[in-house]
């Protein structure tokens, strides 16, 4: 399937995300001849084990993440970042987990926004909000290059697209920038040919950065 880079909004030191930034970014995409196509939504859930004996909690991985992606409505993805494990399961696994009462959702986040078509590129810009609130926690962007699926072959293309993008965005003097750090896919057992599992891993890493950013802001405040 076509390859994709997921970007995380990194606010400048001392500033936070707000919806104005999201609007500006969307306008920027449209100024590059992007055609708005529709909405998209992904969800990410942190699970914690339901244990009778809380002392056993230390034996379980600290971060157990479940992700649903719009392009795979019948699948659900699990990631253990510490153990570098990614798993693709049927979407009914959520029901099973609920019935078994094995894991419970600790925090759930939605990534949602609009999707744009720029020729052979597809862009998604989205806000990060907890499921039952409108509190904006972050902004993510997906850039997908549709014609090919090889991460290696597309690296130059994507780098140059990012340059073009940064040029377009810098004119708006926004307090921050989009950041992409490619996870080490081979550690997760993933190959050069792109799949939705790659996307799930990228989102898990984006969450890591988001949390780190929020914690840094909080530490700065205290």
């Amino acid at each position, binding site marked *: 399937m076509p390859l994709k880079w997921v970007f995380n909004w990194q606010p400048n030191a001392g500033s936070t995300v707000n919806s104005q930034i999201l609007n500006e970014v969307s306008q920027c995409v449209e100024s*590059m001849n992007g055609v708005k196509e529709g909405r998209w939504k992904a969800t990410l859930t942190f699970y914690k084990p339901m244990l009778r004996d809380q002392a056993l909690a230390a034996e379980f991985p600290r971060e157990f993440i479940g992700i649903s992606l719009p392009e795979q409505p019948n699948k659900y993805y699990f990631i253990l970042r510490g153990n570098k494990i990614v798993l693709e399961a049927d979407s009914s696994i959520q029901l099973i987990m609920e019935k078994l009462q094995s894991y419970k959702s600790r925090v759930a986040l939605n990534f949602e926004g609009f999707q744009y078509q*720029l020729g*052979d590129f597809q862009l998604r810009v989205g806000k990060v909000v907890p499921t039952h609130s409108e509190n904006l926690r972050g902004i993510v962007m997906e850039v997908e290059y*549709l*014609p*090919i*699926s090889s991460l290696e072959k597309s690296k130059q*293309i994507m780098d140059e697209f990012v340059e*073009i993008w940064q040029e377009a965005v810098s004119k708006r003097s926004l307090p921050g920038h989009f950041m992409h750090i490619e996870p080490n896919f081979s550690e997760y057992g993933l190959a050069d*040919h792109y799949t939705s599992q790659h996307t799930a891993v990228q989102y898990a890493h984006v969450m890591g950065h988001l949390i780190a950013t929020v914690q840094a802001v909080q530490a700065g405040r205290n």
Partner: protein
Amino acid sequence: MLQQQQHQHHLQSAVAAAPLPSSSSTTTTPPSSIAGEAPPKQVAQAMDRLGQAARLIANIRLGADRLLEALFVAAQPHQSSKPLHLFRQEDESMRQHLQDLRTVGKQLEESGVLNESLRSRSNSWGLHMPLVCPDGAVVAYAWKRQLAGQAGASAVDRTRLALKAFTDQKRRFFPHLNDEEDGESTDNVSKKHRNLPAQAEDNQDILSDRKTLSDLLTNMEKDVPNLKVLTYERLDWLKRASSLPDSANDNIMEALKHNFHSSRILRSAPQNVVSMDKIAVIELFFPSVFRAVVSLHPAGSTDPDSVAFFSPDEGGSYMHSRGSSVYHVFRQITEHATVALQYFLGIRSKTALHYLLHWICSYQTLFTKVCNKCGRLLAMDRQSALILPPVHRPYQTFSASKVLSSQDQSSNAPVAYHIGCFSDDA
């Protein structure tokens, strides 16, 4: 001289004013009073008129041929007024044919053959008016679904024949033209004649040992690493295309593909042999970069007649040498490749396939080679408002030996341009 120009003008306007009946029915005229006639007679009349139309179209095609021939003869030195006479004759008969065609077309429109206005309220006899498919195939009894399938298959054949006819005409009367329809510039023609002998020697030296299709393809595989060359009979290609992308369909692929090496090795086992004279489709596959489809006509020859580029992950029955990729980048390359093919056929017709295949291989750097003019990989193409890599690789100065000798990034590497960057230069 003046009269020649006048006749040229007439020719142009005659050709320009020749709509085929199937494309002229944009307005739906309410059917006039044909209700008085019994349905079988309506159908019979419609079939009759369709036959007339087909004959008129054939006459028009012949007339166009004759006009072009007269033009050609007129271009030769020391001619009498014979070509002018031919012109006038053909001009008159063409106009008459076109007029007759318009009349028949109107009649057909009125009787509801070219649009579907009558089909829904078709008469109680259970008869439907014949349906003319956009490609010109006539389905007499629309309720027979298999005929609709035949119409679809015939569309491919008809298009191929039409394209061959045009290509032959162009090759015969305008052998040295690329995009500019420069009929009267004899200077250009003589200049290119002078270049040809040098190129012919060039060809013979390098290519004297690559005459047959079999040799050509074997050498391709040897010379270009990363390339997979596969060959097919025409119908087999259709099956293969529908089974792509082949991550889930390896079994079908194994049964159908005639991988070039294996077909030579298995020559002794008769049931697996693909005879060279049936090969009609060549697939050039650079994994993760692109897949190119080249069609040969006639099968088994070294005469390419069309080429198209696709994504390595694309699949479907629309993937053939006259098809179009769903991705912009590959659509642009296909357009460019079609022009390059015409160039190779015109200038180096004996070795066109060799040049075409090697030129196609120069696209293996599609996603890595920056544009020679602006130094970037991606650029926003102003005309189409799309961000594209350099899809233009020059073919006029293309030399097959360059591809063979260089794997490095030296100045011998093939050049590439963005669409906008190239046209600025030229």
